[in-house]
């Protein structure tokens, strides 16, 4: 038995990545996720509008965090602020009632807000002449969990398809030696990558359509917004995830390593993207990780478009950041892939001597 144990340890020592996975990763994950896993909401972005806005804003206490007070605006402005994601709670004054509008796509924030409002009413009692407060939950009136989860899950499933399947596809070429042959063929690195990614992009697009349709059919999730905006966000998001797949493949020698790395990238997206825990509730030390994960932005887009009909003008930030991520990730992937395909340096130059019938390389 000892011979076996010694052999196993020796093999393990060769595979540093697996050792790192076994020892370092659990510690890192525990710390990161411990700080991230937080359902408690301490900060609810709130906007107050109407003639009594200043007075109402002054009476709000945490968790309400008043971000905007607009005395000369009404319900329409309040609604558009919620729709654009600038606030989760909007207080509308000036009517016979004080209307409190809540963004039903932010489950935990809304629950916390409802609790805080009830507490406020109980402690304050009902002072003479104070208008009654009327709560209204928008976009997801019954606070149905599946309505919020399905748009996010669609993204998560695409991360699996995009990152894992793509990286395996490229690594398989390396393992079987066909990548070497592709490098000798008259194909440019970007043609190889584009040709490799395009089929997965199409499959993932079909996947996404199916997921959204099933979500709508089975769980009654509404799709209230613009399909084109959703498609644009999905396309950018897919490019990032597929680029990550190619990137993983360029640093993996075999399929096992690719799977390990893909999981290292997928796991944080499950827990840190806002899919389950609200990003705003995370400790600042780990929150920044959320902001480099593509799923964080896709979830903002998919929930916004599907549930709130958020217009494209209000989504420029997540769309822009996804585009930036796509450029960075795909750029890195192509650069690394090109280096692998062209060790002799000739593939890097597009000015391949096509007009000449030969080339001489002197070192």
């Amino acid at each position: 038995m000892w011979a076996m144990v010694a052999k196993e340890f020796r093999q393990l020592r060769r595979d540093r990545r697996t050792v790192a996975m076994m020892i370092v990763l659990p510690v890192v994950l525990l710390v990161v996720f411990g700080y991230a896993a937080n359902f408690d909401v301490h900060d609810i972005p709130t906007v107050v509008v109407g003639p009594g806005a200043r007075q109402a804003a002054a009476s709000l206490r945490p968790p309400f965090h008043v971000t905007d007070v607009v005395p000369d605006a009404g319900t329409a402005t309040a609604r558009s602020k919620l729709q654009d994601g600038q606030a989760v709670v909007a207080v509308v004054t000036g009517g016979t009632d004080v209307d409190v509008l809540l963004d039903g796509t932010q489950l935990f924030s809304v629950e916390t807000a409802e609790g805080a409002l009830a507490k406020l009413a109980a402690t304050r009692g009902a002072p003479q002449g104070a208008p009654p407060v009327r709560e209204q939950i928008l976009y997801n009136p019954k606070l149905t969990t599946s309505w919020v989860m399905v748009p996010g899950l669609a993204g998560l499933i695409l991360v699996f398809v995009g990152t894992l399947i793509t990286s395996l596809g490229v690594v398989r070429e390396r393992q079987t030696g066909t990548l070497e042959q592709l490098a000798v063929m008259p194909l440019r690195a970007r043609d190889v990558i584009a040709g490799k990614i395009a089929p997965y992009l199409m499959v993932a697009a079909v996947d996404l359509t199916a997921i959204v349709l099933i979500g709508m059919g089975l769980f009654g999730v509404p799709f209230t917004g613009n399909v084109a905006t959703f498609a644009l966000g999905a396309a950018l998001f897919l490019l990032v995830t597929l680029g990550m797949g190619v990137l993983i493949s360029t640093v993996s020698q075999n399929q096992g390593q690719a799977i390990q790395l893909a999981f290292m990238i997928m796991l944080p997206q499950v827990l840190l993207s806002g899919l389950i825990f609200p990003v705003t509730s995370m400790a600042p030390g780990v929150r920044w990780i959320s902001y480099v994960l593509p799923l964080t932005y896709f979830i903002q887009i998919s929930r916004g478009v599907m549930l709130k009909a958020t217009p494209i003008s209000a989504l420029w930030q997540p769309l822009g950041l996804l585009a930036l991520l796509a450029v960075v990730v795909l750029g890195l992937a192509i650069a690394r892939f090109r280096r692998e395909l062209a060790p002799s340096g000739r593939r890097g130059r597009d000015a391949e001597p096509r007009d000449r019938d030969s080339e001489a390389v002197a070192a």
Partner: protein
Amino acid sequence: MTWGLTNVRVGFGHRIALDGVTVPAGPASVTVVVGGDGAGKSTCLKALVGLVRPQEGSVRRPARERIGYVPATAGLYADLTVQQNLDFSASAYRLPAGQRVQREQQLLERTGLAGVRRRLGGQLSGGMQRKLAAALALLHAPDLLVLDEPTTGVDPVSRVELWRLISAAAAQGTAVVVATTYVNEAARGASVVLLEAGKVLASGSPDAILRGVPGVVGIAARAGAVRPGPLSWRRGTGWRVWAPDGELPAGVERTAPDFDDAVVVAELAAQAGR
């Protein structure tokens, strides 16, 4: 136009894989690179097709469109059929439709794969796989065909067929470079490069290499269990003896060395020189 490597040096970290290696690759001729495992054959071929960048020396090769390369690994897609593999190569090399059908048919018949068009690459026998890989590299009628150990692990019949394919390509004007571990295949080349530990032990035409064998080679007349001396090796049931100074020991008859002998003598001479 002659392709090939001239005084090429390739290193991986501290290890020198090729040291001043010259491999000619003339049109309508076959160059055979012979050597044991780790001799540097694959590195040689990779430098020739541009997969490895030499640190010194020069490489002459046609444009990518005019190169055909079969790596030591399969060189085909195991999960595509024979026909689909051919289609992919034809598209990658942008073969015109008319030419494509004709070339595919021609190569399938020559390789004996016409009957298995629809079989998956991975389900072909080892010999069939190597023949298909060669056919894929030949599809666009390249100016330079480079094959890395195409016959290793292949049955004798398929080996003959593969060599027929290679010779036919050379006959049509292609410059062919083949790496092999089988010494007896060296004689099939118009020129031979004998590699050992990244260095050229001998090179030239097979005849020139035989003529260039230093000293004399003899056969121990009475084959016994006892090795006649340090510069001797077993061939069949007997022993061969090399005498660098031309003086064979008693009981050893002089013989004309064949290619196997030439390779062993070259290695012994290199060891003596070290």
